[in-house]
């Protein structure tokens, strides 16, 4: 069975301003209702397929992000949500920032926006599904 029909997500707030966070949460709620696609926010890396990260990486949370990523079961995908998660946005200039999420873990999908809108977030997750499916097939053939 394809992983496409049941992607479970975990959301971690890197060092975002909450703007993208609440938009991720808004995706769960009645207007956007991502459970239509079988998506559940499981909140536990061991159960999740897709790691959504909002906000950039700073000194302290880089190990957290790495830990969470390591604890996810293969196949897994990472979606960086919002300008900060993609590049660090204008916080990139701050002394405590390392930059986008791709500085610590491989990112599969970048979702732009400040704050990223729910529609775009859903779009990003759907893109991640294709990535996941590919990884799954690779795993089967390997």
């Amino acid at each position, binding site marked *: *069975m394809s992983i496409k*029909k*049941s992607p479970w997500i975990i959301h971690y707030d890197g060092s975002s301003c909450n703007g993208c966070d609440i938009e991720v949460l808004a995706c769960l709620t009645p207007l956007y209702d991502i*459970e239509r696609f079988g998506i559940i*926010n499981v*909140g536990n890396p061991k159960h999740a397929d897709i790691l959504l990260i909002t906000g950039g990486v700073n000194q302290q949370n880089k190990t957290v992000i790495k830990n969470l990523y390591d604890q996810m079961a293969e*196949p897994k995908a990472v979606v960086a949500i919002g300008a900060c998660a993609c590049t660090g946005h204008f916080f990139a200039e701050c002394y405590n920032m390392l930059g986008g999420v791709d500085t610590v873990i491989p990112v599969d999908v970048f979702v732009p926006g400040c704050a990223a809108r729910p529609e775009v977030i859903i779009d990003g997750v759907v893109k991640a599904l294709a990535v996941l499916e590919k990884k799954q097939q690779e795993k089967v053939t390997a």
Partner: protein
Amino acid sequence: MNAWIWGIVGILLTPVVAGLVGGIDRVITAKMQGRMGPPVLQPFYDVMKLFSKQNLVLNRFHHDLVICSLIFTVAAVGLLFAGENLLMCIFALVVGNVFLVLAAYSTNSPYSMLGADRELLQMLAAEPMILLAAVGIYMATGTFDINLIASGTHSAIQYLPGVFFGLIYVLTIKLRKSPFDLSTSHHAHQELVKGLSTEFAGPSLALFEIIHWYETVFVMALIYLFFASRPIVGIVAVLIVYFLEILIDNINARVKWDLMLASAWVITLIFGLGNLMLLFILK
């Protein structure tokens, strides 16, 4: 021989029925929350996906203990459908549950173990009522033998309204629904992360879901036994009770363990034992 066939049919049909019921549950829940909800077959998609994932473990035992739990839970359902002794079936289910708790303990991870302790608390709250229901059914029908209960001429419900109510009360614990989803909930937004199942990943989690399906069918069958003499009424009653549980799930916050334990025991004593005492005196 007939019993064996029934048992096997029960074991085979349970995942299908429970999965579908689970899917319908999720759709109804979504509708109650003003959402569309997932496809009805979503539980199957979930479980199949989980089987296709990596099996992340902390040590080589906890996955095995989940398998043990599944074996006994399946056995409980099998024995139930085969028409064996009701108490023995319940004990088999308890053993299945104990193995699940042990699996959580064996991971040696804080949230998982806290979940295990909470699960024990849930068992402590729910088990008396379930066993008392069995005693009630015995008092009403004169037997613990499920075959005889099911083929009896009168239903236990007419003698046991209080017991039935008590059972519905603790059913929420068994179905892991609000307000009593303390050890692990369908939604992860609780203080214990996923509690009991925090450390189960991939196939282990899939097994955990399947165990839950069997458990669901088991308790629903228990409800059915109250109406056993009239199968149609029984099935309707089961559906109504399940719908009621969904409704309760949606209109309650999760309570704390002390309230759960105290209220479950008080309900068990007042409605369960009270009903039985009345029955004993009047008979």
